[in-house]
């Protein structure tokens, strides 16, 4: 038994993350002080739902077609927020889902949102539509036929991001999307009213509901990101001047 070579630096980062997380979350518990940069996308979600209510049209939600990963977990927080608003303002939300494992989780989140709004009977499970891996055509059809007033796409997005965003643009829908898949960021940036770039999706949950756990996590992520940026600059300078000491240290 022993430590595997090459994992030492990862372990160090993990320990640092846990230490900062514990410190920040306990400080927030004590003081209640937090600063989270306001993300425009969160407001746009509310604006989109408000517009849908005014127009008497539904809103549409998609997680994209990418494999299940932590991006979906971030999307769940945003879905929970959007579903609560929809339940509160009696706005219909239609979901196009490509992955089967997302169906029960989505069902649970929306059911809870309606229960919390005191309207459990208004929850319609038929609006959660499992369309399978090739869900793009059905998603475009849903967006066009239902004339959605807002379109939200969060998760592991692939080329369906272009299709969904453009289909909804034909309805003049308010659109908000977010993904960590860098290859799709230009497309959602081009078509949406507001976007969440990578880590912003995770930070959005902290803005929506700043619990000690979320605040601690966001704080730790921010500080480690800053440290990484400093290390990248130092590493670049060291390599430029012929030293690979930092690289060797990170490979321990």
């Amino acid at each position, binding site marked *: 038994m022993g430590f595997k070579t090459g994992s030492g630096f990862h372990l160090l980062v993990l320990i640092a993350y846990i230490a900062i997380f514990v410190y920040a979350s306990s400080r927030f518990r004590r003081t209640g002080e937090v600063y989270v940069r306001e993300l425009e996308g969160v407001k746009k979600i509310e604006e989109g739902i408000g517009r849908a209510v005014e127009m008497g049209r539904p809103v549409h939600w998609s997680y994209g077609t990418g494999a299940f990963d932590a991006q979906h977990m971030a999307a769940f927080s945003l879905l929970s927020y959007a579903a609560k608003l929809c339940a509160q303002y009696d706005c219909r939300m239609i979901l196009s889902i490509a992955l*089967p494992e997302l169906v029960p989780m989505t069902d649970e989140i929306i*059911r809870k949102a309606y229960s919390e709004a005191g309207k459990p009977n208004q929850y319609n499970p038929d609006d959660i539509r499992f369309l399978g891996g090739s869900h793009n055509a059905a998603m475009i059809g849903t967006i066009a036929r239902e004339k959605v007033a807002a379109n939200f796409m969060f998760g592991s997005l692939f*080329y369906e991001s272009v*299709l969904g965003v453009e289909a909804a643009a034909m309805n003049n829908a308010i659109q908000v999307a977010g993904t*960590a898949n860098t290859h799709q960021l230009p497309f959602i940036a081009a078509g949406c009213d507001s976007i969440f770039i*990578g880590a912003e999706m995770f930070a959005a949950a902290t803005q929506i509901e700043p619990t000690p756990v979320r605040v601690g996590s966001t704080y730790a992520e921010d500080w480690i990101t800053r440290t990484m940026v400093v290390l990248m600059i130092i590493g670049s300078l060291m390599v430029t001047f012929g030293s690979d000491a930092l690289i060797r240290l990170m490979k321990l």
Partner: protein
Amino acid sequence: MQFLKNQLPVVVTFVAAVTIVLNFYVDIPGLETVSNELVRWNVVLAAFALILGIGNIIKLHLKKIVRHEPDVFYSYVTLGTLAVFIIVGVVDTTEGSTYQWLWDSILLPLESTMYATTMFFITSAAYRAFRVKNAYAAVLMVSAILMMLRVGIFASFMPFTPDVAAWIWDIPNTAGMRAVVVGTALSLAGNAFRIITGLERGHLGGGT
């Protein structure tokens, strides 16, 4: 019931995830086998989830048929296709010639067609994005034009464009993308930590 719904998934997640994470850092005999087996179970769990998904499709379209909703024809087509693929897949196996023929002759052309339509959607997206509404849109448009001019006949008329485009691609673009990747990777790790320790329960319908 509450234990099955709330506590048990957290316990299972914790045990499975800690086993896999531990295997990444520590060399314990047998741990790698257990870790790999747990990862393989993911496929089995996804198969169970697929049953739920199929149930969702059948329920949704049967309701449409019973209610004689508009476009009910497509519900018949969906359920019919689903039945054909399941029956042929079970009888002929997914490696069989009949199943392969169905796949290659129906699904593949339809998916290729869908993918090909992306061209029109991208054109439409580009048109909307390149309308110069502010300084950011102007930067985007100029960068995009330079990227387009670096190839083909334009490059021979304006020989400086490939170099400028290569600089945009290699320096600002790569730096920006790496910043996104580093930030996202740390957020993913942070999120994973919260889920493994049961602090984040959004996927179970709860919060934190």
